[in-house]
């Protein structure tokens, strides 16, 4: 052996994974199902590079996300990064290349993203996101479409017991607008609200000198969670017109989701303040019964595209495929439906071709095994049918019901009766 046992050549870095056999087939199924749903809603695929300039990817990123990016240098000394998400890339494309195209733009993407974080509780260093971006539409109709599409995507994956917690970051931003906080203070406050820690929240508000109606509203935010009643309460707590507008917008989106028939999956949750730094409006996380972390999240990011040129309001979501795989368990079969002994007859090759043309999974032996060895192999691979040529247009068909000899025409008829 060329490598010592301690060599890195046979190991994977922490937080990465190989996927094969059924798992790989399940993931492929998820990808196909999601692409099909996105296509039916009028979204077209956008294919983006795996790495690009760090400056582009770090646009509007929080310090935490910047830290989590894998960075590398090109030979001219420019800093590159592996993409930590695809929304910023889609925004770059829209802002720099698609500014004069008919709006709105509807894109879906699917691919790996990379984050240097501790692999735990659903987090990995490379994971697959499938998501959509709806760009060039500012209204509640666009928010509602993206939320309804998230519901459709989860349902298409046979996930039934889930809910979308929908928040509105503009509400908190409006309430804080009078306090003139810098970004650091804002982020600290968001973190404390996000943890729902009231003691720490009171202490932080006092330290930042926030009192009166603003403090009352902020202390209520972690608990504003439920149905429409939440809207009324939030309206009461609003300290200015922008806060009231933010709540009115959330109400409009909720109404549209009711029209769409998906309101049963929606919980209004103004405590939902954790976000990518670029979100400006509604945000949401999807939770599935039995899973301790979200599978899907998204929101509105109206200022992001403008960083790259054209100003364009936008809203989107991303779904984590590996997380979804923890809660949906499609039946996949990767065993060959027809296993054929390799032989030199054109007739036999034609039989394999016939089965393939009917969409069946066909495997032709390339190891020159005899019938007995092939039957053992068929069992190990759980092949549905084994066909072995015995010469003179006579074939052995071996399957769960036993072995029998068939003529060519009979065998063709048999193959045509198998469903794929």
């Amino acid at each position: 052996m060329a490598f010592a046992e301690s060599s890195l050549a046979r190991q994977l870095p922490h937080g990465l994974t190989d996927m094969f056999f059924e798992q790989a087939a399940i993931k492929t199924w998820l990808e196909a199902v999601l692409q099909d749903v996105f296509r039916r809603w009028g979204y077209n695929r956008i294919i983006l590079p795996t790495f690009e300039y760090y400056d582009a990817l770090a646009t509007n990123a929080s310090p935490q996300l910047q830290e989590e990016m894998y960075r590398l240098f090109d030979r001219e000394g420019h800093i590159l990064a592996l993409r930590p998400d695809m929304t910023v890339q889609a925004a770059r494309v829209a802002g720099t290349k698609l500014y004069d195209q008919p709006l709105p733009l509807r894109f879906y993407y699917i691919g790996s993203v990379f984050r240097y974080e501790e692999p735990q509780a659903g987090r990995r260093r490379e994971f697959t996101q499938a998501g959509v971006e709806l760009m060039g539409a500012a209204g509640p109709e666009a928010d509602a479409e993206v939320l309804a599409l998230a519901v459709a995507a989860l349902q298409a994956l046979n996930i039934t017991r889930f809910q979308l917690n929908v928040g509105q970051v503009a509400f908190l931003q409006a309430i804080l607008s009078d306090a003139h906080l810098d970004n650091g203070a804002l982020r600290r406050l968001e973190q404390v609200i996000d943890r729902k820690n009231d003691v720490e929240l009171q202490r932080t508000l006092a330290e930042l000198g926030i009192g009166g109606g603003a403090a009352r509203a902020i202390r209520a935010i972690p608990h504003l969670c439920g149905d429409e009643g939440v809207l009324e309460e939030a309206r009461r707590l609003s300290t200015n017109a922008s806060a009231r507008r933010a709540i009115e917008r959330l109400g409009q989106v909720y109404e549209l989701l009711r029209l769409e028939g998906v309101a049963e999956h929606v919980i209004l949750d103004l405590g939902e303040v954790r976000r990518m730094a670029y979100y400006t409006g509604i945000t949401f996380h999807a939770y599935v019964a039995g899973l301790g972390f979200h599978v899907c999240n998204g929101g509105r990011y109206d200022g992001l595209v403008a960083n790259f040129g054209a100003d364009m309001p936008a809203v989107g979501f991303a779904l984590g495929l590996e997380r979804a795989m923890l809660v949906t368990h499609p039946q996949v079969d990767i065993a060959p439906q027809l296993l054929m002994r390799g032989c030199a007859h054109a007739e036999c090759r034609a039989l394999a071709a016939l089965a393939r043309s009917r969409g069946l999974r066909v495997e032709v032996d390339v190891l020159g095994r005899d019938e007995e060895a092939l039957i053992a192999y068929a069992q190990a691979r759980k092949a549905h049918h084994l066909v072995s040529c015995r010469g003179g247009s006579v074939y052995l068909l071996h399957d769960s019901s036993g072995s029998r000899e068939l003529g060519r025409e009979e065998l063709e008829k048999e193959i045509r009766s198998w469903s794929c």
Partner: protein
Amino acid sequence: MELLTVALPKGRMQDPALALFGAIGYTVSEEATSGRKLLFEDLSGRLRFILAKPADVPIYVEYGAADLGIVGEDVLRESGRDLYEPLGLGFSRCRLVLAGPPEAKERVLRLEIGLRVASKYPKLVREYFQRRGISAEIIPLSGSVELAPAVGLADLLVDLVDTGRTLRENGLVEIETLMESQAMLVVNRASHKLKFEPIREIINKLAAEVARREHEGERR
């Protein structure tokens, strides 16, 4: 009501935590707690308790293996886990302090080179020294941290202090408090969303009980 799972820390916080749940109507039979059982239900069958090492409680809750948990704020911050922490429970109050031999109090740590600090809280200590611009080597230990300065393993230590007796007995003095700590209620993020009503009911009952006790304490 859906069965909820609560992770409790084994050890000194276990009894006060069970007593708190008892006070809001979730009592456990003596038989359940007297043995070595790590998993038992309350008498109403609405809560399932699991007993875990304190440092493991945030892990059980983050993964959703437990919906709720009780854990010291010190352990919670050290874990860095992503949880809701809606309620301070008012018991097991103590402080995380930097301590050392009496002469250490006079030293200007910022100017020292090769400072060694022993602690069960390596993450919190590293963050604390980084914030203060002090370079220190953190020596992670899992117990008897007071021993470290006496045998020359470390110059200083960071540990949890209740009355301060252990420090005094080992000839050590407090230099600074890093944080105040108390028992906290923690909640899994997804559970809080998906089992909102039953969890809210428990949080509200616990909050009322904690407030009642504080009020009683003030009157006394």
